[in-house]
Structure formats: C-alpha cells, structure tokens
C-alpha cells in the first residue's frame, strides 16, 4: 500500500513508514525530529532586522572541506552563513552542515572556561578555573594528577613520554608546531583511522594522492565512495550535475544502495571487502583484450610485464571475480570495455575514506594501476595533480633534546622472516592509532608514556573499540584536552582548555591545489565568546608558563645541553711550539644560557598573532594586495581580478579554460621514476605483496545468523563533531541501523524498534530501519552518534556508537583500522 503522508496526518500521529505520493512526493522526512525541544521554539534567527550588518568572509569547519562562507553578522550576532562564490574549491555552495555552523557557535553546551578535574578520571567532574590556574595545573599538577614538570623530571627529560594527538583542521598546524618544539616523537592523528591506505597507496604508485577531474570525466567508476552523502568539494558538485545521461556515466559499486547509487546510471552491489577482485578482473579484461593505451603504458609504466603476467597467470577472469564479488561477469566485461573506450577521460575514483578491509592498500594500488592503463593521469577528465600556489614560511622551532627517545614503535619481528613492525609493515608520521593504543595498554612500549595533549580530537568516538580507548585515557597520568565541546574524550581529561569555534578565530592561511588553485583564509567573524581562545593564543599562554621550567629539567638531565652551556666562547689555540693556550671566555654564563635558551624557547613560534603570521606568509610572495584580498574576500589567486566572473546566477568562472591546470607534469605520474609503479620490490622486503594479488583470506564471509557491520558518512553529520548540533539533529534525530526488510520481517523488527547490536568488542542499542537497500547478511549505521558525555544535551546517549561495536582489527601495511571486518549479532529488545 502506498500512503501519502501529509503534515496533517503527521500531526495526528499516524506516521507510517512507506511514503509515496502520486505525482508528488510529500513533505516527509522519515528520520526527522518531531519534538520541539521543550519550549525553545526559536533556535534560528530571521535575518534582516538589525541596525548594524557586517558580512565577513570566512571558511567553514563543519567538516574537513574548508568551503568558503560569508557570515552575516547583525548587531554582533551571526544570523546566517552563505556560500562565498569566490572560492574555486567550494564554488558557490554550503552544505547542510555549513549552514548549521551557527549552531556550533551558539551551542549552549560549549566549553566556556578552563576546567580542572576534581572527580575521578572519566567521571566528568570539573571545577572552573582561570587560564593561569589551568596552565599551573598542567605544569605542576594538583592533588589529583601530576604535572608535566614532575613526569618529565622522573623520566629524565625523555620528551617522548608525552603523546600528542590532533584532529584534522587548519589550526592543527599550530598545535603541531607546539609538538615539534616540545620534542616528543609520539604524534598521532586521524590518518590511520582515515585515509592512510588510500593516500599512501596512490603515493607509492602514482607519486601523489591525486584529485579527480569530475567536471570533464566522461565515465566514472565510484566504488566504495559515496559523494552524494560524504560530500567532498568540488567533486560532489561537479559529479551530480552531469550524471543521468547528461555527460558523465556514473557506475556506483557499493554494498549499500546509497544516495550516490540513486544518482548513478548503474549500481552494482558488491560483497564488502572484495573490490580488489573486481579491479583485478577489470584489469584482466583490459590486458587480455589489449584495450589499454599501449603508447602510454610503454612510456610511463614500470613493472608492467610482471604485473600483466601475474594478472593473466592468476586467471583473474570476470567469471572468477563474479564468485567473489557477487557482480556478474558480463557487467565486469562491459565496464572494462566502456572505461577504456572513454579513457583518458575516464576516472576510477580514488575516494577518501577510512580503511574498510585488510586488503585496502593493495586495492588502492590496483585502482591506481588500472587508471594508468587508460592513460588518464595528469590530464583533463582523468586524475589530476593540479597546481599549487606556494606560500611563505612561518618559522617553527625544533630543539634537539638528547634524552628524547624515538617514536614508541615496537620493532620486534612479529614472525620469522617478517621484517616489519609488530603491528604493521610501515610506520608513517600519522602512525597507527589503534596499534599505539593497544601497545600502551599491554605494556609493550619501549619506555613509559605517561601523559598526552589532545587537540580537537575525540579518540573515544573516532576509533574502534571504545572500551580500550577509555582504559588508555584512564591509564594516562596527565591528559590535557583542547576542544570546543565537552566530548566523551574531554570527560577523561585532567585539564580542559576551551578553544573558540572556527567563527571566532583567524586560522593559518592555506593553499588549495587543483585544476583551479587558490589561497584561502579563515577570518575571525566575531570575538571569542566566554573565556575561550584560539589555539595559537592557548599555545602562547601555555608555553610562556612551561618553557623555562622545562628548560631547567633539560639542563638537569641532558649532558649535551650541559656541555653546550659550559662553552662560554673560549677557544683552545695550539701554538707553533705545541703548547695549548686558551683564549678568554667571550661571554658570561648568563649570556651563554640566554643564547642556548633561545634554541629551546617554546614561546618563539607563538609570539605573533595569527593575522600577523598570515600577512607575512602571503605578502612575502604575493604582495600587500593579496593580504588585503584575503582579509576582505577570504580568497586570493593571481589574476583573480581578471579571471573571476559570474557566468550565471548560480555559476562562476575562476580561470579561463586555457589557464586551468589540468596537466602539471606532462601527463606523467609524480613518482621519482615518473612512471606508474606496478611492482615494488622494496615492499616485498617488508612482507608486503609487491604487486596487487588476491588471497583467499580476503574472501567475504559471514557466519550463519550474523551480519557484517558496515559504517559510513552522511551529508548531515560529520563524525561525532556535529552530534550535538540541534539544527542537524532536526533533520535526523539519531542514527538508525539499516537491516534488510525481509530479514527484519522474519525477526519481527519494524521501523523504529530498538535492537541490540553486539560483537566481541561490545554492544549498542539502536533503532531499526528495515530497507531493501542493504543485503540480508549485512547491517549499516552511520558513525558519530551515541556519545556518553552527559554534558552534551542532545548527543548524550542519542543513537548508537559504531566504535563501541567495531573490533580493533589492524590493517597490515600501515596499521590502519579496518572498519568493515566485524561480524555482529542483532537482537530485538
């Protein structure tokens, strides 16, 4: 039965599930919130009733895209965020989250003052203190926790006894400057729970993690990427204006029927974790039917013959792949032929998502090589590297601490003949978060790590196995958290430093490479509210407090430093007669100490304001006008005044066609050899397959009665960062678990019923959404819900936290978290 659901019926409480109209589709959002949040009816503000209006160009921070926005400020209140059309990356748009940024600014639950823990760790009991008291507590501790000075003294100035971790963002750089100056080797960020494997695999295969020219591609394979929901600018805008027979054919490969599938010309359901078999079969067709660009391959490939032999000898036929992937062989033949017919204006879309399966690195290698077979590299309509506008330099500080140990990596060989680390083959700057955490919990560290600084990062929500993360945070003797919101991680902190939101600060100016490169700057819209500060001010205040006392600790333990200080400028002179005489010291002890301290002065990188630093970085390369343009418009690129113009009410020109940077490397990969690297012998030494091959252990399987748990992104939420946003919550009240309709019926589960989802790791309770958009042996829910922090009015226990259920399975090459390797049980509660 089809029911047209109107608002009148909605109000009468007869909300049914399936909602369809005859010629129209009703005003219905199944997942929307219908509570009016008590009496607080007015959350949003109608624009245009103010005396004083200012429009300030800024950049959004509701997700990682950094789209350009214009904030409308009426009598000091931000009433609207509009797209800033001047930025070629985000063109002329703001997504729902960008629009809801106002609610991040005016969220009543924001961290407003510095806090010190007074209750038990994780209990969430804090007292409000001044900034000075907070800095004092970080340096010298309280009766509840030790300070940095005590820990560092006891560890004899091993700076690596502190872990630094940060979420992605424009000010991450400022925090990382503090990390470098502090001298620890332990840095962890989002990469190993994000795009480490895809970025690295494209890096070693094509020399860079490329962008895709979806504005000109004629054929796009989007596999395991969901651009209609996981919005990336400009890809999302470019792609969906041209699908459905309007210039670009879009093939969507996904285990779920996503919004991207709905906008695609063809959707093929694939068994989770088997994309590698699909790409290998495409490659097999292209090699055996000789469809590849022979000239391009001849000139730009290394190891092609070995790879060709491997693919053909292993018989990676479409018929073979059909059994593994669930995609019919004839579809695979067709896609391989169509892709190559359109190449080089064909894109196997690289995507930018977290690691789903243990073979992800090899999958990305196979995708990059397949792309190369059509020659669609560094060229219009293919993958592109883009041009980068260089910026001036802001000097950091990197003192040498003799006592600082190297990164806490366990390099003991995990198995005979395996030359990697215990939990992965390659360790990069981003490190392996879950590997690090688990080693720390299991006392497998080469030395003691006792404290951590955590900036805009929520490990409690962002990585698999929440229980273990809680244990880690409890075990850390000193946790300093810098954040805007009282997240689950902040609840475990000893000292909480409240950062202002992105609308209250100017961030480091940034350059955005691409076909249409630009420089963009996030400008402060209003002054920081409450007692919050931008991270650069926090770093300035903190380093002014701790820099000298920490230098004293180095003096006490660091013999190299002691020697350096003892050298007062005297020189030994060997005379002709062989006698040694000493010249007089050229400086006093105090002068020498001041000179040496200058190398260790942590306050140095934070002396100037962000505005001053940005002006310097821009003016030194592009002149004063560029600085003024960035302050006024938020965006600058050379010749913008000539190139930038409106083409219609919706569209703008940023560069004329002949000025666009489709090709910056002569159509070649950016590897040192300038060739696509098919066969990487050095990987073999580390126990990694030198060429992408399929292994039986990669096959998809789910034990009877269980489900494979899938997770993913959503257009209206960005991980846990937006979970408390009331306007976004109005669009989708909480996350729902997708379960196949027929399976749900068998188990008596209806829409909105609560189900318990459990794995070896843990369990959550979440409402059900029975749908045919998912396979009978899989379930899915979006990431970022189900926070446990009671300080979050709307996010608290709202929906389910995927990471409480996902097992901490470590991908073998980079130690990334494999997110789609967990089987769960479902029970109606």
């Amino acid at each position, binding site marked *: 039965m089809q029911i047209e659901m109107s608002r009148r019926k909605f109000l009468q409480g007869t909300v049914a599930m399936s909602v369809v109209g005859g010629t129209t589709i009703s005003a219905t959002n199944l997942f929307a919130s219908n509570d009016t949040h008590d009496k607080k009816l007015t959350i949003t503000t109608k624009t*245009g009733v103010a005396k004083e209006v200012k429009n300030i160009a800024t950049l959004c921070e509701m997700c990682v895209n950094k789209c350009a926005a214009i904030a409308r400020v009426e009598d000091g209140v931000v009433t609207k965020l509009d797209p800033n059309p001047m930025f070629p990356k985000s063109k002329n748009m703001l*997504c729902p989250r960008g629009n809801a940024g106002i609610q991040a600014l005016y969220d009543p639950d924001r961290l407003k003052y510095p806090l010190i823990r007074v209750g038990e760790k994780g209990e969430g009991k804090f007292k409000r203190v001044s900034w000075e008291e907070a800095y004092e507590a970080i340096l010298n501790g309280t009766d509840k926790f030790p300070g940095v000075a005590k820990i560092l003294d006891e560890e004899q100035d091993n700076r690596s006894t502190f872990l630094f971790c940060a979420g992605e963002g424009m000010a991450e750089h400022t925090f990382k400057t503090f990390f470098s100056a502090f001298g620890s080797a332990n840095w962890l960020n989002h990469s190993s729970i994000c795009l480490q494997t895809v970025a690295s695999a494209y890096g070693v295969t094509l020399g860079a993690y490329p962008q895709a020219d979806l504005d000109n591609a004629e054929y796009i394979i989007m596999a395991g990427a969901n651009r209609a929901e996981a919005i990336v600018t400009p890809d999302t805008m470019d792609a969906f204006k041209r699908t459905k027979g309007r210039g670009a054919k879009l093939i969507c490969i996904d285990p779920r029927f996503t919004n991207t599938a709905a906008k695609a010309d063809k959707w093929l359901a694939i068994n989770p974790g088997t994309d590698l078999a699909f790409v290998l079969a495409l490659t097999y067709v292209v090699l055996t039917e000789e469809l590849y660009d022979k000239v391009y391959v001849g000139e730009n490939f290394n190891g092609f013959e070995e790879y060709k032999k491997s693919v053909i000898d292993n018989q990676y036929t479409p018929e073979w792949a059909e059994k593994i992937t669930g995609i019919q062989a004839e579809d695979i033949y067709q896609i391989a032929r169509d892709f190559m017919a359109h190449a080089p204006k064909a894109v196997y879309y690289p995507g930018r998502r977290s690691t789903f399966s243990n073979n992800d690195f090899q999958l990305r290698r196979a995708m990059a090589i397949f792309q190369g077979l059509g020659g669609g590299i560094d060229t219009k309509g293919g993958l592109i590297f883009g041009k980068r506008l260089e910026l001036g330099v802001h000097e950091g500080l990197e003192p040498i601490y003799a006592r600082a140990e190297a990164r806490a990596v366990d390099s003991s060989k995990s198995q005979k003949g395996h030359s990697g680390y215990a939990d992965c083959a390659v360790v990069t700057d981003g490190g392996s978060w879950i590997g690090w955490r688990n080693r720390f919990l299991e006392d497998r560290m080469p030395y003691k790590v006792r404290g951590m600084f955590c900036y805009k990062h929520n490990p409690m929500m962002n990585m698999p196995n929440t229980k273990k993360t809680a244990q880690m945070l409890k075990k850390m003797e000193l946790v300093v958290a810098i954040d805007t919101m009282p997240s689950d991680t902040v609840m475990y902190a000893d000292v909480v430093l409240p950062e202002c939101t992105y609308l209250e600060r100017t961030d480091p100016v940034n350059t955005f490479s691409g076909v249409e490169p630009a420089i963009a700057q996030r400008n402060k819209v209003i002054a920081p509210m409450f007692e919050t500060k931008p991270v650069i001010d926090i770093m300035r205040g903190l380093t002014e407090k701790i820099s000298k006392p920490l230098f004293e600790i180095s003096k006490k333990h660091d013999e190299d430093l002691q020697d350096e200080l003892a050298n007062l400028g005297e020189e030994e002179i060997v005379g002709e007669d062989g006698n040694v005489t000493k010249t007089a010291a050229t400086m006093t002890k105090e002068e020498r100490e001041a000179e040496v301290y200058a190398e260790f002065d942590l306050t140095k990188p934070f002396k100037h304001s962000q505005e001053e630093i940005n002006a310097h970085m821009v003016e030194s390369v592009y002149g004063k006008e560029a600085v003024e343009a960035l302050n006024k418009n938020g965006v600058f690129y050379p010749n913008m005044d000539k190139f930038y113009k409106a083409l219609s009410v919706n569209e703008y020109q940023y560069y004329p066609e002949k000025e666009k940077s489709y090709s910056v490397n002569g159509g070649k990969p950016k590897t040192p050899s300038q060739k696509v690297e098919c066969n990487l012998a050095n990987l073999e030494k580390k126990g990694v397959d030198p060429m992408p091959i399929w292994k039986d252990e990669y096959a998809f399987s789910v034990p009877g009665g269980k489900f494979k748990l899938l997770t993913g992104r959503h257009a209206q939420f960005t991980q846990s960062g937006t979970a408390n946003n009331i306007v976004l919550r109005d669009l989708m009240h909480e996350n729902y678990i997708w379960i196949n309709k027929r399976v749900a019926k068998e188990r008596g589960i209806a829409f909105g019923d609560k189900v318990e989802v459990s794995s070896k790791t843990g369990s959550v309770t979440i409402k059900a959404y029975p749908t045919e958009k998912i396979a009978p042996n899989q379930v899915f829910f979006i990431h970022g819900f189900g926070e446990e922090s009671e300080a979050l009015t709307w996010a608290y226990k709202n929906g389910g936290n995927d990471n409480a259920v996902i097992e901490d399975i470590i991908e073998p090459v980079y130690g990334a978290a494999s997110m789609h390797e967990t089987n769960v049980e479902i029970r109606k509660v």
Partner: protein
Amino acid sequence: MARYGMALDYKNCINCKACEVACKEENGILMGADKHRIWVGVKEIEGEYPFLSIVSSSFEPSQCQHCDDAPCQEVCPTNATYYDENGVVRVNADKCILCSYCMNACPYDARYVDDRTMTVDKCNFCSDTRLARGETTTACQNTCPTKVRTFGDLDDPNSEISELLRTREHFSLKSHLGTKPKLFYLT
C-alpha cells in the same frame, strides 16, 4: 513588479538538505519535522536487494508552488493569504485565524503552523528577508551544492529562468488540478 517563479533541475538533487537548513536559518523557521517551508521528497526504493530499480528512487525538492490560481488563497476566509505585487503567495500574520482551511486546500502540502505567530506559514521566496534587502536569489537556491534551483522573473524575457523554460523541457506538479504552479521541474 515582477512575476517570480522557480525552475528546478531536480535530477541534480542529492537529498543533502542544505536548502532546508538554509531556509530555516535565513527565515527563522521553527524546529520540528512538520515545521518547514521547503523539503526534499524521497521515495522508498522498489525491488528486492540486489535487484533494485534506480529510477524508482528519486529525490524531489519542493516547496510552495506559488500557484497563479492558489487554492489556499481561494479558501482563506480572512484574506490572510494574498498575492503580493510580485505574484508571490504570502501570508498576513495579523489576519490569520488559524482555521487551517488553507492546509487542507493546498494540494502540495506546502503549509504548516508556526506556533509562535499562530499563523499557517509557508515559503514566500525569502520576500521579507533576502529579496527585501535587494538580494536576487532565495536562500535555498544560493546554498545548493548541485545548483538545483534558478529563481527569477517569469515576465522578464531576458531572465535566466525565462531562458531555461524556453530551452528546456519541463513539467509542473499536479498540473491537472489547474492551479498553475510557478515552480517548474526541468527534465
């Protein structure tokens, strides 16, 4: 004096709901699932996994159709619903008595109750916000990632919307009812 209308390149819509949030923020609309001037209609997909019909799953962005013959205006006993000088169907909050005849009359389900003003509210093409201060786009058009909407003067032959309607095939919703909507869906 203009005759405002809107063309929707609805195939571009990815159901991200940026338009819904922009509308709420621009016009100070209430929270709540039934409180909205604008929406994206979604059809639940037909078929059984993995044999699903892509065409059965469509996203239909919509809002008040600003009918030239608006049933809601016709039934309003107090003339609270009226046409302004630009052909926009508006509501006078002072005159509305919340009889809800308009809600029942509207074939597009475009009207809802604003509990603050006790008015049956609706989309007004941002007439008292953006247009009032000289902007030429509505909030929903301006923010859209895939640029579904083009707003403009139907009486101006040089406007972009007039050009679009001259050059692209289009249809109206429930055209058989004779309401003469000024929202046009481009095919």
